[in-house]
């Protein structure tokens, strides 16, 4: 009798505590999740509020920033094109390396490799994915750059050059493309391959004309993600591409990218109010818009064009 009433009282107390604990904990968990929204707003707010005074300062306008061909803070010229071309050239080289290598590796792993070979190859590729970017930067400047100089004579190749940075970056992106594309390829149902083989197609024909088209959305998404990473990559270009804006499409020349310039100025000792310092936030804003657009495009492609199989 007594025991029973104690239990009832205990249960009631427990229930009451629960009634408070539940919503309180939920609110706490929500606050943590809301941090993601706060950070997103914070990024945009910081970039915009710091970039605004830059665009308001003398001799600078949005148009001259986006279309100017000269980046020379000393004489008040802030045209972002030289930094953009360097980013474009290096990213293009990186994608030219990462696309065939990554895609080829993905096709081999998903369509050809024996399970045992796959078990060894996949972790090894993941090892490559885990190597920090600074190591690829070191690779670019100590091995790739001297090799390029030896191949094309030092007169034509600067020790800091876009080709070395792009090649190292391509290598860095290869495992990412390989692993994302392989996921897309493996999601294609076996029955499609079997149907194709039953019609007399060779393994290669099945891969190229049946499996690849079926996995195309995932593959394109992986390439866009890789491109976005290439554009945002900072460490490799800071080390290997050179310090100093240079409007050129010659991959053997040295030229500073958007990210390289931001890193050099942000890490330096410029006073916070100077136009020079504020200019990096305008570049940052441009960088943010580009990478966000690419990421959104990749998500849209996956959502829109994904082939859903039962």
């Amino acid at each position, binding site marked *: 009798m007594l025991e029973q009433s104690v239990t009832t009282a205990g249960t009631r107390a427990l229930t009451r505590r*629960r009634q408070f*604990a*539940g919503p309180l904990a939920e609110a*706490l*968990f929500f606050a*943590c*999740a809301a*941090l*993601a*929204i706060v*950070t*997103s707003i914070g*990024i945009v707010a*910081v*970039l915009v509020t710091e970039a605004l005074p830059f665009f308001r300062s003398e001799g600078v306008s949005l148009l001259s920033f986006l279309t100017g061909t000269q980046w020379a803070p000393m004489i008040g010229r802030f045209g972002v094109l030289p930094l953009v071309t360097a980013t474009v050239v290096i990213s293009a080289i990186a994608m030219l390396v990462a696309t065939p*290598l990554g895609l*080829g*590796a993905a*096709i081999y792993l998903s*369509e*050809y490799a024996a399970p045992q070979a796959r078990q060894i190859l996949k972790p*090894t*590729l993941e090892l*490559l994915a*885990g*190597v*920090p*970017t*600074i*190591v690829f930067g*070191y*690779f670019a*400047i*100590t*091995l790739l750059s001297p090799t390029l100089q030896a191949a094309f004579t030092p007169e034509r190749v600067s020790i800091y050059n876009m080709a070395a940075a792009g090649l190292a970056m391509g*290598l860095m992106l290869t495992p990412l493309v390989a692993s994302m594309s392989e996921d897309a390829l493996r999601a294609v149902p076996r029955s499609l391959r079997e149907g194709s083989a039953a019609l007399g197609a*060779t393994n*290669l*024909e099945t*891969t190229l004309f049946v499996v690849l088209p079926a996995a195309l959305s995932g593959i394109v998404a992986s390439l866009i*993600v890789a491109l*976005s*990473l290439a*554009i*945002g990559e*900072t*460490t490799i270009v*800071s*080390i290997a591409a050179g310090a100093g804006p240079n409007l050129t499409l010659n991959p053997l020349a040295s030229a500073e990218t958007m*990210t390289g310039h*931001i*890193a050099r100025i*942000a*890490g330096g000792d410029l006073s916070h109010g100077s136009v020079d310092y504020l200019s990096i936030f305008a570049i*940052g804003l441009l960088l*943010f818009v580009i990478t*966000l657009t*690419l*990421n*959104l495009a990749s998500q849209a492609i996956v959502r829109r064009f994904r082939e859903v199989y039962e």
Partner: protein
Amino acid sequence: MSAPPVEHYDPWAGATARRDAYRRLLNSGGRVAFAGCIGVALLALALLLGNIVSEAFGLVATVDERDRDGLVEGRAFTELSREDLARLLRQELSAGGLTRLEEERPLEERSLDDLRALVLARIVEPDVVGVWPLHESLLRRDAITAEVAAEEPGARLEFRSWLNWQFLTSPMASEPLEAGIRTAILGTLWVVSIAVLVAVPLGVAAAIYLEEFARNTRTTRLLRACITNLAGVPSIIYGMLGLVVFVRWGEALTGGRSILAAALALALLLLPIVIINAQEAIRAVPRSVREASMALGASPLYTVWHIVLPAARPGILTGTILAMSQAIGETAVLIAVGAATFIAFDPSGPHSAFTVLPIQIFNWTLRPQEEFRHLAAAAILVLLALLLSLNAVAIALRARLRGE
């Protein structure tokens, strides 16, 4: 009555056979090409690692500022006893420098190797006049010896491992033979631990909300979109955010370009990674387990805390280690937030100025003098060893947790 057998005549038979042979050839060519892609990637990985190892060891030619064998008349440097070395230090060093050394540890109590290193660093002061990577040191040793003898007659040629105990335990120095990475290792430990301690609890809590509590509202969809897109924001932008918010606005709290400012910026970078991984881990816990718990009368909170989280622990742990590896190798954020380039003292707390391993490597790599590249290679080996052991721990822990 059956029809007479029709004779099969296929005018294209020869062509078909030729075409099939061609298709088979293409097929095997494709196989070779795809395998070649992996081959090239792995070859590049081997080159990358080989290059680092080769740069981390090799021959070094030095010239003594003061000949080490002439310090004491008629006796070679290696024959000098501890007393001789201590006496030399007392004679040659300035009073202030000597006091500092004695305060650190009295000369009498120091070992022979320690004293030798001190005499070399403070009195002999060898200058590096030539360095060679491992492969050249092994293959062209005779040629290098002849070269050094011809160009720098007084130089001594020694095989040096740039990765050595002294390198791991010495602070940064401007002399390549004395420089070490102790400050950088300590800085990395400080920054990464704070960043992970901040990011993991917040990230796991956010993941719990999204997976267990969130209803499909507009806010929730916004949250998910933010997290997905934050994961794709370049790290240099997190660096700029950190520079403005934690270094400038929060200077009173963080002390400017400090460990704390860097760790907080890094935590923001890690947050989406941690959330996404924790979400996956929580999602992998079967629905039936939750339903069973609720059916026994447990509240949603109790179920999450005592049932779902323990089951998701291996996955969350893997995500944590992944975040840690990312933080250890991260360079761009720390360049922007401002890890200092030359710090010769140990970090004393969250507010102190600092440097980290990747920044140290970055600076050494950018130096024009070749000897610093070798230091960078040695530091990279330390960085990679750190990452590898971390991953090994992750695998081992996961195996144990799964076994339970």
